[in-house]
């Protein structure tokens, strides 16, 4: 009697071929993108989305062609922060055109499609038990977006990842070895511990780890025009080592917290409209480090 592998095809639906076709569509769609960078952490609330948007803005100001895919489907924030909540998705010749911000950054965010008063719910044939299929459905949605948006010729496509160390690795698997990772932490041992787990998990795969950014590294006090401590960390950032303990990847920079920057994010105003501040300079530095690392052909030391 024949076994599974003796039979070619599945009798008519071509399910595996459909999945393979979608992968080809994604690969073809991203062929014009020079660099794919996923901004992750593992920890939530460390400022991944804010850094993603403002690093994109800093690189855009250098004349690079940049786009962001907000891959946090359950908590999309890029639409509001980038000012594209009311973006119009226009059918192109074969795919959908990518909405752009006022400063020319392409942004795809589910926040442009679904009001903030609604949670993301998928139509489901099964009542309950969403833990058995939800992650698969979300990655199918990611694949559909990647394969159906006109990404065109870009210098950099940034993925703003959701929290969760295991999710970070799932995105690495899905996006493939072309995608490099930039991790974000804050000066807290709890956050560093979670990010260290992400580093350990990602290190087992083929994806390049560009480094990490320490966000909320103090806060910028406008009254005294100085950076003051925000977290009391038992192991402060070690400038000589260039990294805090536990994160064996390069530090691309530290960024202080600025309440004014948070206000801009809520109202969708680009960083360029923020007068020069330590935060702006820190973001510029990280953007340049990121660019230099991407353009370097050698793997950064781990």
């Amino acid at each position, binding site marked *: 009697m024949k076994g599974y592998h003796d039979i070619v095809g599945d009798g008519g639906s071509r399910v595996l071929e459909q999945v393979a076709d979608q992968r080809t569509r994604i690969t073809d769609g991203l062929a014009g993108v020079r660099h794919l960078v996923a901004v992750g952490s593992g920890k939530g609330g460390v400022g991944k989305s804010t850094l993603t948007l403002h690093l994109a803005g800093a690189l855009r100001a250098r004349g690079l062609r940049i786009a962001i895919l907000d891959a946090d489907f359950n908590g999309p924030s890029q639409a509001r922060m980038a000012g594209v909540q009311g973006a119009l*998705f*226009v059918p192109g010749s074969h795919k959908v055109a990518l909405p752009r911000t006022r400063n020319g950054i392409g942004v795809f965010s589910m926040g442009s499609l679904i009001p903030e008063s609604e949670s993301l719910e998928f139509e489901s044939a*099964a009542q309950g038990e969403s833990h058995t299929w939800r992650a698969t459905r979300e990655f199918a949605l990611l694949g559909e977006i990647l394969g159906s948006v006109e990404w065109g010729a870009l210098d950099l496509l940034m993925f703003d990842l959701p929290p969760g160390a295991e999710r970070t690795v799932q995105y690495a698997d899905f996006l493939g070895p072309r995608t490099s990772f930039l991790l974000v932490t804050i000066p807290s041992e709890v956050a560093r511990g979670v990010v260290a787990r992400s580093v350990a998990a990602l290190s087992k795969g083929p994806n390049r780890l560009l480094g990490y950014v320490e966000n909320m590294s103090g806060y910028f006090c406008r009254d005294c025009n100085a950076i003051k401590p925000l977290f009391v960390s038992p192991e402060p950032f070690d400038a000589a080592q260039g990294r805090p303990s536990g994160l064996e990847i390069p530090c691309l920079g530290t960024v202080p917290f600025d309440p004014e920057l948070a206000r801009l994010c809520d109202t969708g105003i680009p960083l360029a409209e923020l007068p020069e501040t330590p935060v702006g300079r820190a973001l510029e530095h990280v953007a340049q480090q990121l660019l230099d690392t991407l353009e370097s052909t050698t793997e950064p030391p781990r």
Partner: protein
Amino acid sequence: MKFLCVPCDSPMKLQTVGPPERGSLSVVYSCPECGYEMAMLTNPFETQLVQSLGVRIGPDASSTEGTRAGGTSCPFAAMMPATEVALPDQAGEPIPVRWTSGAEARLANIPEFVRPMARTGIERFARERGTLEVDEKILDAARDFFGM
């Protein structure tokens, strides 16, 4: 999943897929040798599993005739803002916006979950430019205005 006709030792071929009913698909296979037919009846969790892969089930799933397992339209329809109705004219009747076949074809190429919002927005864009027809020129103008 594959099906084998044991007496003939021959792979069975997919014939028809019934529309989803309470989350269950009826997928009929037949043996090309003896003509024996059997139906696979999925439970809602099996239907959902296939649906989650974003694939279609059917004899010619590469065409639009395949059945999207357990679903037929935009998966986020319930969350979308209500579709904007056409602006009423002075007599209170809605003013419809026509779509040319070329524009409709382009709309059909984009993901289902984007289509309702795209249609509404493009029609608003057309009205703002004093036209009640969406053609490919209007789409190109909207693309230049809003897109990368």
